[in-house]
């Protein structure tokens, strides 16, 4: 059974329809990529799933429960974490404070400490800078913090919005490696990316969004060899 199922979702900004009835599903253990150009509706889709934007029609089912109308803050304790576009770390709090806020919904103190150790292992730079203000980190480090912060909630599904945006090529490779490792540990990943090539190289399946509609979907490897995808998104 799918861990996340989106059915005929429609989202409006005022009178403008941003999402025009899309359906897709994410199965446990998968990395799913949503790719598409600027303005295609990728971020809107993610923000609707995580409850930041209300939907007009359609359903979102997560882990067997209809979460279409659920307020965003309740999803975290159900095991869904969101790494937002632009990272949005709490710049005026320390790295450690940021990470602890990621575990806000958890009550098991000793297990939180263990998760913290796991995250420090995965992102050694976060441990080195744990008492530094998050706003003083570099872009790549902030992305790692945003991911670490999301992992602190111990999610089943992690939703990532443009994790490679604005990063230097070295960091881009590192971030995609980390996403694969997170997935290897058993966390399902829903990934939105403008860097289609990189996204398709790590994803199992992908959906291509164009002006609020899904125009193509399938196995990530096959999509990579699809002529229309190559032309539009892989700049070949």
């Amino acid at each position: 059974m799918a861990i996340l199922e989106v059915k005929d979702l429609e989202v409006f900004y005022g009178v403008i329809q941003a999402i025009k009835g899309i359906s897709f599903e994410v199965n446990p253990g998968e990395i799913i990529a949503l790719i598409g150009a600027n303005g295609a509706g990728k971020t809107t889709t993610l923000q609707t799933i995580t409850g930041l934007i209300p939907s007009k029609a359609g359903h979102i089912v997560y882990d067997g429960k209809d979460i279409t109308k659920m307020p965003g803050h309740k999803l975290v304790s159900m095991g869904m974490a969101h790494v937002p576009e632009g990272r949005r770390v709490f710049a005026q709090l320390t790295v450690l404070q940021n990470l602890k806020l990621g575990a806000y919904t958890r009550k098991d103190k000793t297990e939180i400490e263990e998760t913290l150790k796991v995250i420090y292992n995965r992102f050694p730079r976060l441990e080195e800078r744990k008492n530094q203000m998050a706003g003083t980190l570099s872009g790549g480090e902030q992305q790692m913090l945003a991911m670490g912060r999301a992992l602190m909630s111990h999610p089943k599904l992690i939703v990532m919005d443009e994790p490679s945006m604005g990063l230097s090529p070295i960091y881009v490779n590192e971030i995609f490696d980390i996403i694969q490792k997170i997935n290897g540990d058993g966390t399902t990943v829903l990934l939105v990316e403008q860097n289609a090539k990189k996204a398709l190289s790590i994803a199992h399946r992908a959906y291509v969004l164009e002006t609020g509609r899904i125009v193509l979907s399938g196995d990530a490897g096959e999509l990579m060899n699809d002529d229309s995808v190559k032309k539009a998104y892989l700049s070949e």
Partner: protein
Amino acid sequence: MSFLSYLINGISLGSIYAIIALGYTMVYGIARMLNFAHGDIIMVGGFAIFTIVSTMGLPPLLGILVAVAVCTVLGVTIERVAYRPLRGASSLAVLITAIGVSYLLQNVALLIFGSNARQFTSVVTLPNLKLADGALTISSVTIVTIVSCILIMIGLTSFINKTKMGQAMLAVSEDNGAATLMGIDVNRTIAITFAIGSALAAVAGALLCSTYPSLTPYTGSMPGIKAFVAAVFGGIGSIPGALIGGVLLGVIENLSKAYISSQLSDAIVFSVLILVLLIRPTGILGRKINEKV
């Protein structure tokens, strides 16, 4: 000696401003709104104590507890009924609503208690402190006020730094969308902020009316505005800023009253605010608002 006495009284008055300013500054920091009804919560607290102590003849401590309870419930109710539906509305709409709530509270108090000034019995019954062979007398209210302010500052700072709810407040004040993604209930966090601010307003009401024992439906209005000035002065959104702004304002006001003119003291206070804002638009401890990329 008289300078010292003016100074101490100024610090005491400033402590009251600081306690009120906390309510302004916390609500602004977290909900990004100016709650202009905050000053009138003080007046409600004053009347609650007056009713319990003077009308019913019960002990002052009970009066303070009842006032804290009444103001907390009132603050949360105002937030729920008047401000929450406007979340996401323009800040001007929220500001006008806040002014409306302020007039509502004043006029309801006018209906219930009338416009005559009531004699407020001080909640502090300790003897005054006489120093230097009686040359310097410090009233017990003054001491209690300053001590209360220090305790409140310590308590609030450790609440924010040590508790989960405090950290949630910091997160909401910086980015409420990102806070939601952490699983923080933003509405609840804002409601708790109003509860704390209003409870502090009740304490401020007790101290204010004990210092200046006359109570009318407009009692909270001027101290409310001055506390707002203090919050801006210190840097709105900053808790230590509220303390510094409040105390400075109280000292400037009292010293102007003593040495320049008691009629001009308010004008002087507000002139100082304008000067400070010309030099440091974010206030003394105010942070620059970071540009979102």
